[in-house]
């Protein structure tokens, strides 16, 4: 049985593919910005917060880490409207990705904070610096430098996992692929090309973050 590969559908739809890749990267960027900011707050609260706050954060982290992303997405998109919270597919995707990334990053950032020697904090206190200043200027930069590679990996995992948002009709890269293959019946070629694009995006993101990390945390290691 002969099968002739035909990649012309990919070349004809290059504009669409670029749009899809843009949506995927955009979603990832927003989720990353919100997720990192929230997880810094969450990690600080789970380290120094009141007992109930710590328990709440632990429960949240465990709940998210032990359920699949696609179920979280469906719960937010299909389930929350029953509570009166109706989100567009795009909003639901950003929310689900942020909620997911935050849970993983809280653990990572907290490990980073715990790895900063207590002497750093004590020395700063002895110099008369305020607790907020100490956290943001002394502890946090060292904590983030400690766990930067793990954070980058988590961001890339989130980008790859975001392929699932195509299932609620967000026009990300995978959704574009579904569209092209339903028009051209070239399913294998389309998904093969899309896979290469994802691979390329993952490799370039890692390269970019590595470079940025070297500049951000220069001289710390």
């Amino acid at each position, binding site marked *: 049985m002969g099968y002739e590969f035909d990649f012309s559908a990919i070349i004809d739809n290059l504009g669409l593919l670029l749009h899809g890749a843009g949506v995927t990267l955009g979603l990832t960027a927003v989720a990353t910005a919100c997720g990192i900011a929230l997880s810094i707050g969450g990690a600080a609260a789970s380290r120094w917060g009141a007992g109930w706050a710590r328990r709440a954060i632990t429960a949240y982290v465990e709940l998210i880490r032990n359920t699949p992303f696609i179920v979280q997405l*469906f719960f937010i998109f*299909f389930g929350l409207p029953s*509570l009166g919270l109706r989100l567009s597919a795009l909003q639901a995707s950003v929310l689900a990705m942020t909620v997911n990334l935050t849970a993983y990053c809280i653990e990572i950032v907290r490990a980073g904070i715990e790895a900063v020697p207590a002497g750093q904090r004590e020395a700063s206190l002895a110099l008369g610096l305020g607790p907020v200043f100490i956290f943001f200027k002394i502890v946090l930069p060292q904590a983030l430098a400690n766990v930067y590679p793990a954070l980058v990996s988590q961001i890339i995992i989130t980008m790859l996992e975001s392929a699932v948002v195509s299932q609620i009709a967000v026009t990300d890269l995978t959704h574009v692929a579904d569209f092209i293959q339903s028009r051209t019946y070239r399913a294998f070629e389309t998904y093969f090309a*899309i896979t290469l694009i994802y691979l390329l995006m993952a490799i370039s993101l890692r390269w970019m973050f590595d470079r940025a990390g070297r500049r951000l945390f220069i001289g710390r290691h």
Partner: protein
Amino acid sequence: MITLTLFDIISFLLRAARWTLLLAGIAFAGGGIGAMLLLLFRYSWPRFGGWFVRLYVDLFQGIPLLLQLFLVFFGLPLIGVEVSPLLAAGTALTLYATAFLVEIWRGCVDSIPRGQWDASASLGLRFVMQMRLVILPQALRVAVPPTVGFLVQLVKSTALASIVGFDELTRTGQIVANATFEPFTIYGLVALIYFAMCYPLSAGARRLEGRLSSSR
């Protein structure tokens, strides 16, 4: 719209959860065998094997699992293999699990001091016996906690099989939610069932890890 009692819904979902566990079991068994073969290949043929394993791991960890599923689902028919959703999901998850397990186990084997290799070689053991009698038994101890941790990820990953039409927990949840118009309850229950399967594994992995690091 169909009215189902809560009891009906839960029993539907629990029965579907068995397929989730079965799929995870298949992927773990297949991935374990695949990873072990790659591991032996890597250490018996360091240069090419190392390069090949690196490429395999980077490739399968660098593309979305959803697309691995699609590629298997749409690719196997091109070489004349009739695919069922179970075959497609089982194959894709096996390849995926292989990539993660070989990476985890490679780390464990590398953590065994070089002297163990040298000493066993000087006792006249060949590669297979070195592995079987000296390296793997020691690596196994280190490997258990991260392997159990990976099982959590694997159970969660099986949810994607719903997209190629395999009737596991997530897809059954979708079907029931569409029939009853109660997505909040249904997806909530689905999440809880996943949690009930995964949490003991995560907690177990953490305990094992604690025990391992305190015994050092």
